């Protein structure tokens, strides 16, 4: 009995901790039920660029590794440096659902400037 309980416990601990970690509480991802699951083999090549929504200015706030960038151009050397270190790098754009598409395009321009073509748009399943 206790063995079974412990196994169940470990199972639920695993599935909750694995999925909750990456979710940034400050932004609401757009819902897309048909988006593909993350490929586990690409997980270590992924780097997240978060775009929070600032309702007062109707602009996006760029956050990378918990640092807020006011000058978005600062991100370009960091991204190209990461690209040099890992040629298979994929940038995951985690944009808030309310962010204007123009802001996403600005972020995509930066990613393009850094020489990265492989990007993914994060979305949640519900």
């Amino acid at each position, binding site marked *: 009995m206790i063995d079974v309980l412990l196994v169940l*416990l470990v199972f639920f601990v695993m599935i909750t901790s694995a999925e909750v970690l990456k*979710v940034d509480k400050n932004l609401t991802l757009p819902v897309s039920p048909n988006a593909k699951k993350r490929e586990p083999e690409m997980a270590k090549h992924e780097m997240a660029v978060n775009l929070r929504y600032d309702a007062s200015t109707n602009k996006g706030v760029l956050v990378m590794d918990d640092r807020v960038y006011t000058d978005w151009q600062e991100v370009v050397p960091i991204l190209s440096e990461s690209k040099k270190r890992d040629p298979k790098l994929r940038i995951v754009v985690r944009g808030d659902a309310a962010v*204007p*598409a123009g802001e996403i395009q600005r972020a995509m321009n930066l990613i393009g400037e850094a020489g990265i073509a492989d990007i*993914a748009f994060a979305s*949640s399943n519900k």
Partner: protein
Amino acid sequence: MKKKRSHKRKHSSEVHLGFQIAPMIDVVFVILLFFIVQAGDIQVENSHVTQLPGRVESAEPVELPDEVSIVVEDDGQVYLNEEPMDEPASKNLPQLASTLNGLREAADATKTKVLVTIYANELARYERVVDVLDALTRAQINNVTFQAGAPE
């Protein structure tokens, strides 16, 4: 009159100090319930993988297939090759998905590929762009690019 209580106590050597399984099961059960409840509303993060246009050099000449353009307006109205598709409030975009699916099937029959370019207006909501990407995934179209926005 004082009672002597000492005689009621067990002698220390008589107390059973073995491992108590029953309280442990209780605790494990509570922790288990906590995680089961947590697991119910997990948000799984998925992604739409695409390639940015114009930055990758190819060694071989690439034959460009027919291009399909999708425009997303500020109010959420979606146009496929300048034809309005679905209502701005319709999140699932059924008309767009079925039209794209038809296009993809026609392209498959002629062994070509459908190349879709998304032109999103500056003030269109990003959520709407993801709705379009979702419809494209449903129509099994993988060649999606974005309009290369002019740098500010």
